Protein backbone atom coordinates (compact mmCIF):
# COMPACT_ATOMS: atom_id res chain seq x y z
CA UNK A 1 0.00 0.00 0.00
CA UNK A 2 3.06 2.24 -0.09
CA UNK A 3 2.39 3.83 -3.44
CA UNK A 4 -1.35 3.84 -3.02
CA UNK A 5 -2.36 7.36 -2.12
CA UNK A 6 -4.90 8.03 -4.79
CA UNK A 7 -8.49 7.93 -3.57
CA UNK A 8 -9.23 5.73 -6.55
CA UNK A 9 -6.57 3.20 -5.69
CA UNK A 10 -9.09 1.23 -3.65
CA UNK A 11 -10.98 0.29 -6.80
CA UNK A 12 -8.02 -1.33 -8.53
CA UNK A 13 -8.58 -4.90 -9.58
CA UNK A 14 -5.69 -7.14 -8.64
CA UNK A 15 -5.34 -10.60 -9.98
CA UNK A 16 -4.83 -13.14 -7.24
CA UNK A 17 -4.76 -16.33 -9.30
CA UNK A 18 -4.06 -15.94 -12.99
CA UNK A 19 -6.41 -18.00 -15.09
CA UNK A 20 -6.67 -17.75 -18.84
CA UNK A 21 -9.47 -19.48 -20.66
CA UNK A 22 -9.24 -19.43 -24.44
CA UNK A 23 -7.61 -16.04 -24.61
CA UNK A 24 -9.99 -14.53 -22.07
CA UNK A 25 -8.53 -13.27 -18.86
CA UNK A 26 -10.61 -15.11 -16.29
CA UNK A 27 -8.32 -14.54 -13.37
CA UNK A 28 -9.49 -14.86 -9.83
CA UNK A 29 -9.22 -11.28 -8.65
CA UNK A 30 -9.73 -9.48 -5.39
CA UNK A 31 -13.18 -8.65 -6.71
CA UNK A 32 -13.95 -12.33 -7.21
CA UNK A 33 -12.59 -13.06 -3.77
CA UNK A 34 -14.93 -10.52 -2.22
CA UNK A 35 -17.87 -11.98 -4.12
CA UNK A 36 -17.02 -15.44 -2.85
CA UNK A 37 -16.74 -14.04 0.66
CA UNK A 38 -20.12 -12.33 0.27
CA UNK A 39 -21.73 -15.55 -0.90
CA UNK A 40 -20.13 -17.57 1.87
CA UNK A 41 -21.11 -14.99 4.48
CA UNK A 42 -24.68 -14.87 3.24
CA UNK A 43 -24.89 -18.63 3.25
CA UNK A 44 -23.39 -18.86 6.69
CA UNK A 45 -25.60 -16.10 8.01
CA UNK A 46 -28.76 -17.79 6.83
CA UNK A 47 -27.92 -21.45 7.26
CA UNK A 48 -26.21 -21.26 10.61
CA UNK A 49 -28.79 -18.76 11.78
CA UNK A 50 -31.62 -21.09 10.91
CA UNK A 51 -29.82 -24.16 12.22
CA UNK A 52 -31.93 -24.58 15.35
CA UNK A 53 -35.24 -23.69 13.72
CA UNK A 54 -36.47 -22.60 17.11
CA UNK A 55 -40.08 -21.61 17.55
CA UNK A 56 -38.87 -18.69 19.62
CA UNK A 57 -35.95 -17.40 17.58
CA UNK A 58 -32.68 -16.36 19.08
CA UNK A 59 -30.85 -13.22 18.01
CA UNK A 60 -29.19 -14.71 14.99
CA UNK A 61 -32.28 -16.53 13.82
CA UNK A 62 -34.25 -13.33 14.30
CA UNK A 63 -31.91 -11.52 11.95
CA UNK A 64 -32.18 -14.25 9.35
CA UNK A 65 -35.95 -14.26 9.64
CA UNK A 66 -36.02 -10.49 9.55
CA UNK A 67 -34.15 -10.36 6.27
CA UNK A 68 -36.41 -13.04 4.84
CA UNK A 69 -39.53 -11.24 5.95
CA UNK A 70 -38.25 -7.91 4.73
CA UNK A 71 -37.87 -9.18 1.19
CA UNK A 72 -41.08 -11.20 1.38
CA UNK A 73 -43.02 -8.11 2.43
CA UNK A 74 -41.35 -6.09 -0.28
CA UNK A 75 -42.55 -8.54 -2.89
CA UNK A 76 -46.03 -8.76 -1.41
CA UNK A 77 -46.39 -5.00 -1.40
CA UNK A 78 -45.10 -4.41 -4.89
CA UNK A 79 -46.14 -7.49 -6.85
CA UNK A 80 -48.73 -9.20 -4.70
CA UNK A 81 -49.03 -12.93 -4.20
CA UNK A 82 -48.20 -13.62 -7.86
CA UNK A 83 -44.70 -12.48 -7.00
CA UNK A 84 -44.04 -15.38 -4.64
CA UNK A 85 -42.29 -17.56 -7.26
CA UNK A 86 -39.73 -14.83 -7.81
CA UNK A 87 -38.76 -14.59 -4.18
CA UNK A 88 -35.51 -16.59 -4.55
CA UNK A 89 -33.99 -14.37 -7.22
CA UNK A 90 -34.93 -11.14 -5.46
CA UNK A 91 -33.75 -12.39 -2.10
CA UNK A 92 -30.48 -13.59 -3.60
CA UNK A 93 -29.89 -10.28 -5.34
CA UNK A 94 -30.73 -8.31 -2.23
CA UNK A 95 -28.48 -10.32 0.07
CA UNK A 96 -25.62 -10.44 -2.40
CA UNK A 97 -25.65 -6.70 -2.99
CA UNK A 98 -26.21 -5.91 0.66
CA UNK A 99 -23.34 -8.08 1.82
CA UNK A 100 -21.15 -6.80 -1.00
CA UNK A 101 -21.81 -3.21 0.03
CA UNK A 102 -21.29 -3.98 3.69
CA UNK A 103 -18.06 -5.89 3.14
CA UNK A 104 -16.86 -2.87 1.22
CA UNK A 105 -17.30 -0.78 4.35
CA UNK A 106 -14.53 -2.71 6.10
CA UNK A 107 -11.10 -1.09 5.83
CA UNK A 108 -8.72 -2.73 3.35
CA UNK A 109 -11.50 -4.62 1.70
CA UNK A 110 -12.84 -4.17 -1.77
CA UNK A 111 -16.32 -3.14 -2.86
CA UNK A 112 -17.22 -5.25 -5.86
CA UNK A 113 -20.44 -3.31 -6.35
CA UNK A 114 -18.36 -0.24 -7.15
CA UNK A 115 -17.53 -1.72 -10.54
CA UNK A 116 -20.09 -1.08 -13.21
CA UNK A 117 -19.53 -4.38 -14.94
CA UNK A 118 -20.63 -6.21 -11.81
CA UNK A 119 -23.76 -4.15 -11.31
CA UNK A 120 -24.50 -4.12 -15.01
CA UNK A 121 -24.15 -7.89 -15.11
CA UNK A 122 -26.80 -8.20 -12.44
CA UNK A 123 -29.01 -5.55 -14.02
CA UNK A 124 -28.90 -7.14 -17.45
CA UNK A 125 -29.80 -10.51 -15.98
CA UNK A 126 -32.83 -8.91 -14.34
CA UNK A 127 -33.70 -7.03 -17.52
CA UNK A 128 -33.47 -10.05 -19.82
CA UNK A 129 -35.28 -12.26 -17.34
CA UNK A 130 -38.12 -9.77 -16.96
CA UNK A 131 -38.43 -9.34 -20.72
CA UNK A 132 -38.51 -13.10 -21.23
CA UNK A 133 -41.06 -13.36 -18.44
CA UNK A 134 -43.23 -10.77 -20.16
CA UNK A 135 -43.10 -12.70 -23.42
CA UNK A 136 -43.82 -15.99 -21.71
CA UNK A 137 -46.80 -14.57 -19.84
CA UNK A 138 -48.28 -12.47 -22.60
CA UNK A 139 -46.74 -13.61 -25.88
CA UNK A 140 -46.69 -10.95 -28.55
CA UNK A 141 -49.24 -9.00 -26.58
CA UNK A 142 -46.19 -7.89 -24.61
CA UNK A 143 -45.55 -5.27 -27.27
CA UNK A 144 -48.69 -3.44 -26.21
CA UNK A 145 -46.51 -2.45 -23.30
CA UNK A 146 -44.88 0.13 -25.53
CA UNK A 147 -48.12 1.76 -26.58
CA UNK A 148 -49.72 3.96 -23.98
CA UNK A 149 -53.39 3.03 -23.83
CA UNK A 150 -55.68 5.60 -25.35
CA UNK A 151 -52.99 7.35 -27.36
CA UNK A 152 -54.11 8.42 -30.83
CA UNK A 153 -52.50 6.43 -33.62
CA UNK A 154 -50.98 9.57 -35.08
CA UNK A 155 -48.79 9.88 -32.01
CA UNK A 156 -47.54 6.29 -32.05
CA UNK A 157 -44.42 6.95 -34.14
CA UNK A 158 -43.37 9.46 -31.52
CA UNK A 159 -44.50 7.61 -28.42
CA UNK A 160 -43.24 4.15 -29.22
CA UNK A 161 -39.56 5.15 -29.55
CA UNK A 162 -39.86 7.09 -26.31
CA UNK A 163 -41.36 4.10 -24.55
CA UNK A 164 -38.70 1.80 -25.97
CA UNK A 165 -35.92 4.12 -24.84
CA UNK A 166 -37.56 4.34 -21.46
CA UNK A 167 -37.67 0.56 -21.29
CA UNK A 168 -34.09 0.12 -22.45
CA UNK A 169 -32.88 2.64 -19.92
CA UNK A 170 -33.89 0.32 -17.09
CA UNK A 171 -30.77 -1.82 -16.89
CA UNK A 172 -28.62 1.28 -17.30
CA UNK A 173 -30.26 3.21 -14.51
CA UNK A 174 -30.40 0.10 -12.33
CA UNK A 175 -26.69 -0.58 -12.67
CA UNK A 176 -25.43 3.00 -12.75
CA UNK A 177 -27.33 3.90 -9.60
CA UNK A 178 -25.73 1.19 -7.51
CA UNK A 179 -22.28 1.56 -9.01
CA UNK A 180 -22.21 5.36 -8.83
CA UNK A 181 -23.38 5.47 -5.24
CA UNK A 182 -20.75 3.01 -4.10
CA UNK A 183 -17.99 4.62 -6.16
CA UNK A 184 -18.83 8.15 -5.04
CA UNK A 185 -19.25 7.23 -1.40
CA UNK A 186 -16.00 5.35 -1.10
CA UNK A 187 -14.05 7.97 -3.03
CA UNK A 188 -15.46 10.68 -0.77
CA UNK A 189 -14.40 8.72 2.29
CA UNK A 190 -10.87 8.36 0.95
CA UNK A 191 -10.63 12.03 -0.01
CA UNK A 192 -11.65 13.14 3.44
CA UNK A 193 -9.32 10.60 4.98
CA UNK A 194 -6.55 12.30 3.04
CA UNK A 195 -7.50 15.63 4.61
CA UNK A 196 -7.12 14.20 8.08
CA UNK A 197 -3.43 13.58 7.54
CA UNK A 198 -2.82 16.77 5.61
CA UNK A 199 -4.41 19.09 8.17
CA UNK A 200 -2.56 17.78 11.22
CA UNK A 201 -4.35 18.91 14.39
CA UNK A 202 -7.14 20.48 12.36
CA UNK A 203 -7.74 17.04 10.95
CA UNK A 204 -10.15 16.37 13.78
CA UNK A 205 -12.87 18.04 11.77
CA UNK A 206 -12.62 15.85 8.68
CA UNK A 207 -12.20 12.89 10.99
CA UNK A 208 -15.52 13.67 12.64
CA UNK A 209 -16.97 14.08 9.21
CA UNK A 210 -15.68 10.68 8.17
CA UNK A 211 -17.33 9.09 11.16
CA UNK A 212 -20.64 10.61 10.17
CA UNK A 213 -20.07 9.75 6.54
CA UNK A 214 -19.33 6.14 7.40
CA UNK A 215 -22.70 5.94 9.06
CA UNK A 216 -24.30 7.44 6.00
CA UNK A 217 -22.45 4.99 3.79
CA UNK A 218 -23.84 2.11 5.82
CA UNK A 219 -27.31 3.49 5.21
CA UNK A 220 -26.58 3.89 1.51
CA UNK A 221 -25.23 0.35 1.40
CA UNK A 222 -28.55 -0.92 2.67
CA UNK A 223 -30.65 1.48 0.65
CA UNK A 224 -28.99 0.63 -2.62
CA UNK A 225 -29.57 -3.06 -2.07
CA UNK A 226 -33.15 -2.20 -1.17
CA UNK A 227 -33.63 -0.04 -4.26
CA UNK A 228 -32.18 -2.72 -6.49
CA UNK A 229 -34.54 -5.28 -5.00
CA UNK A 230 -37.61 -3.08 -5.14
CA UNK A 231 -36.97 -2.10 -8.74
CA UNK A 232 -36.57 -5.74 -9.67
CA UNK A 233 -39.94 -6.31 -8.01
CA UNK A 234 -41.52 -3.45 -9.91
CA UNK A 235 -40.15 -4.68 -13.21
CA UNK A 236 -41.51 -8.15 -12.51
CA UNK A 237 -44.81 -6.52 -11.58
CA UNK A 238 -44.83 -4.66 -14.89
CA UNK A 239 -44.11 -7.84 -16.81
CA UNK A 240 -46.82 -9.77 -14.97
CA UNK A 241 -49.51 -7.11 -15.27
CA UNK A 242 -49.30 -5.30 -18.53
CA UNK A 243 -51.42 -2.21 -18.60
Amino acid at each position, binding site marked *: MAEAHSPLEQFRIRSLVDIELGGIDASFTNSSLMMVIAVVLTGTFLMVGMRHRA*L*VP*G*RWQSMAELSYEFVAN*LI*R*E*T*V*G*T*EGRPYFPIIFTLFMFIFFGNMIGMLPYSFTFTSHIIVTFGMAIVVFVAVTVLGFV*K*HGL*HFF*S*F*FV*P*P*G*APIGLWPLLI*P*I*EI*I*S*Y*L*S*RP*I*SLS*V*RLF*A*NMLAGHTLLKVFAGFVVALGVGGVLPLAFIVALTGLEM*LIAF*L*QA*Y*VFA*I*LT*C*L*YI*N*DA*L*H*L*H
Partner: protein
Amino acid sequence: MNEGRPPPPLEDLDSRLRAAKARGKPRGGAKGGGQPGSANQGLGFALRIGVDLVAALAVGVGLGLLIDEALGTRPWFMVVFFFLGAVAGMLNVYRTVSGIGHGVGYKPAERAPREDEAEKTAGTEKAPPEGDDESGGRK
Protein backbone atom coordinates in the same frame (compact mmCIF):
# COMPACT_ATOMS: atom_id res chain seq x y z
CA MET B 1 -32.09 -14.44 24.99
CA ASN B 2 -35.82 -14.35 25.61
CA GLU B 3 -35.29 -14.42 29.34
CA GLY B 4 -38.33 -15.46 31.26
CA ARG B 5 -40.68 -13.93 28.72
CA PRO B 6 -43.63 -16.24 28.11
CA PRO B 7 -44.37 -16.95 24.46
CA PRO B 8 -47.39 -15.11 23.05
CA PRO B 9 -50.55 -17.02 23.85
CA LEU B 10 -51.62 -19.47 21.20
CA GLU B 11 -55.23 -18.35 21.53
CA ASP B 12 -54.78 -15.31 19.34
CA LEU B 13 -52.79 -17.33 16.82
CA ASP B 14 -55.97 -17.80 14.83
CA SER B 15 -56.67 -14.12 14.49
CA ARG B 16 -53.04 -13.41 13.67
CA LEU B 17 -53.09 -16.10 11.01
CA ARG B 18 -56.21 -14.60 9.52
CA ALA B 19 -54.62 -11.16 9.52
CA ALA B 20 -51.54 -12.56 7.79
CA LYS B 21 -53.68 -14.28 5.19
CA ALA B 22 -55.60 -11.10 4.54
CA ARG B 23 -52.32 -9.33 4.00
CA GLY B 24 -51.35 -11.96 1.48
CA LYS B 25 -54.40 -11.31 -0.68
CA PRO B 26 -53.64 -9.78 -4.02
CA ARG B 27 -54.53 -6.19 -3.59
CA GLY B 28 -53.62 -2.86 -5.05
CA GLY B 29 -49.91 -3.23 -4.60
CA ALA B 30 -47.20 -1.16 -6.23
CA LYS B 31 -47.17 1.42 -3.53
CA GLY B 32 -43.39 1.46 -3.44
CA GLY B 33 -43.15 4.33 -5.83
CA GLY B 34 -46.11 6.47 -5.07
CA GLN B 35 -46.37 6.85 -1.35
CA PRO B 36 -43.18 6.46 0.55
CA GLY B 37 -44.47 4.76 3.64
CA SER B 38 -41.38 5.05 5.78
CA ALA B 39 -38.26 7.14 5.82
CA ASN B 40 -36.38 4.30 4.15
CA GLN B 41 -38.77 4.17 1.26
CA GLY B 42 -38.70 7.93 0.89
CA LEU B 43 -34.94 8.08 0.66
CA GLY B 44 -34.75 5.06 -1.60
CA PHE B 45 -37.30 6.77 -3.75
CA ALA B 46 -35.25 9.95 -3.96
CA LEU B 47 -32.11 8.04 -4.91
CA ARG B 48 -33.93 6.47 -7.81
CA ILE B 49 -34.94 9.61 -9.63
CA GLY B 50 -31.70 11.30 -10.62
CA VAL B 51 -30.24 8.35 -12.43
CA ASP B 52 -33.48 7.66 -14.29
CA LEU B 53 -33.25 11.01 -15.99
CA VAL B 54 -29.72 10.56 -17.25
CA ALA B 55 -29.94 6.89 -18.11
CA ALA B 56 -32.72 7.38 -20.64
CA LEU B 57 -30.79 10.22 -22.25
CA ALA B 58 -27.68 8.05 -22.51
CA VAL B 59 -29.68 5.19 -23.99
CA GLY B 60 -31.27 7.58 -26.49
CA VAL B 61 -27.94 8.94 -27.66
CA GLY B 62 -26.43 5.46 -27.78
CA LEU B 63 -29.32 4.12 -29.81
CA GLY B 64 -29.11 7.09 -32.18
CA LEU B 65 -25.39 6.55 -32.69
CA LEU B 66 -25.97 2.86 -33.39
CA ILE B 67 -28.59 3.63 -36.02
CA ASP B 68 -26.31 6.26 -37.55
CA GLU B 69 -23.52 3.72 -37.66
CA ALA B 70 -25.74 1.28 -39.48
CA LEU B 71 -27.24 3.73 -41.95
CA GLY B 72 -24.31 6.09 -42.38
CA THR B 73 -26.30 9.17 -41.49
CA ARG B 74 -23.95 10.49 -38.89
CA PRO B 75 -25.46 13.23 -36.83
CA TRP B 76 -29.14 12.99 -37.66
CA PHE B 77 -30.47 10.01 -35.76
CA MET B 78 -28.30 10.92 -32.83
CA VAL B 79 -29.88 14.36 -32.68
CA VAL B 80 -33.39 12.96 -32.97
CA PHE B 81 -32.77 10.29 -30.38
CA PHE B 82 -31.09 12.76 -28.08
CA PHE B 83 -34.39 14.57 -27.79
CA LEU B 84 -36.38 11.36 -27.59
CA GLY B 85 -34.05 10.21 -24.84
CA ALA B 86 -34.48 13.46 -22.97
CA VAL B 87 -38.24 13.09 -23.21
CA ALA B 88 -38.05 9.48 -22.07
CA GLY B 89 -35.91 10.53 -19.11
CA MET B 90 -38.38 13.18 -18.04
CA LEU B 91 -41.18 10.70 -18.53
CA ASN B 92 -39.36 8.23 -16.28
CA VAL B 93 -39.03 10.81 -13.55
CA TYR B 94 -42.58 12.00 -13.97
CA ARG B 95 -43.90 8.47 -13.70
CA THR B 96 -41.82 7.65 -10.68
CA VAL B 97 -42.87 10.82 -8.91
CA SER B 98 -46.53 10.64 -9.72
CA GLY B 99 -46.64 6.91 -9.01
CA ILE B 100 -47.97 5.85 -12.38
CA GLY B 101 -46.29 2.53 -12.91
CA HIS B 102 -42.55 2.54 -12.71
CA GLY B 103 -41.18 2.99 -16.15
CA VAL B 104 -42.96 1.96 -19.24
CA GLY B 105 -46.73 2.06 -19.29
CA TYR B 106 -49.40 4.36 -18.05
CA LYS B 107 -50.98 2.12 -15.48
CA PRO B 108 -52.00 4.22 -12.50
CA ALA B 109 -50.50 2.24 -9.66
CA GLU B 110 -52.67 3.45 -6.81
CA ARG B 111 -56.03 3.79 -8.42
CA ALA B 112 -56.30 0.65 -10.52
CA PRO B 113 -57.41 -2.20 -8.28
CA ARG B 114 -55.22 -5.21 -8.79
CA GLU B 115 -58.15 -7.64 -9.10
CA ASP B 116 -59.35 -5.95 -12.28
CA GLU B 117 -55.83 -5.94 -13.54
CA ALA B 118 -55.47 -9.69 -13.07
CA GLU B 119 -58.77 -10.38 -14.79
CA LYS B 120 -57.88 -8.15 -17.64
CA THR B 121 -54.63 -9.91 -18.36
CA ALA B 122 -56.06 -13.36 -17.81
CA GLY B 123 -59.39 -12.97 -19.56
CA THR B 124 -59.94 -10.54 -22.37
CA GLU B 125 -57.23 -9.87 -24.88
CA LYS B 126 -57.43 -6.12 -24.88
CA ALA B 127 -59.75 -4.46 -22.44
CA PRO B 128 -60.71 -0.86 -23.05
CA PRO B 129 -58.19 1.34 -21.31
CA GLU B 130 -59.64 2.62 -18.11
CA GLY B 131 -57.05 5.25 -17.58
CA ASP B 132 -58.21 6.99 -20.72
CA ASP B 133 -59.54 10.15 -19.20
CA GLU B 134 -56.63 10.38 -16.82
CA SER B 135 -53.96 10.00 -19.44
CA GLY B 136 -55.82 12.49 -21.52
CA GLY B 137 -55.62 14.98 -18.71
CA ARG B 138 -51.93 14.32 -18.27
CA LYS B 139 -50.82 15.36 -21.71
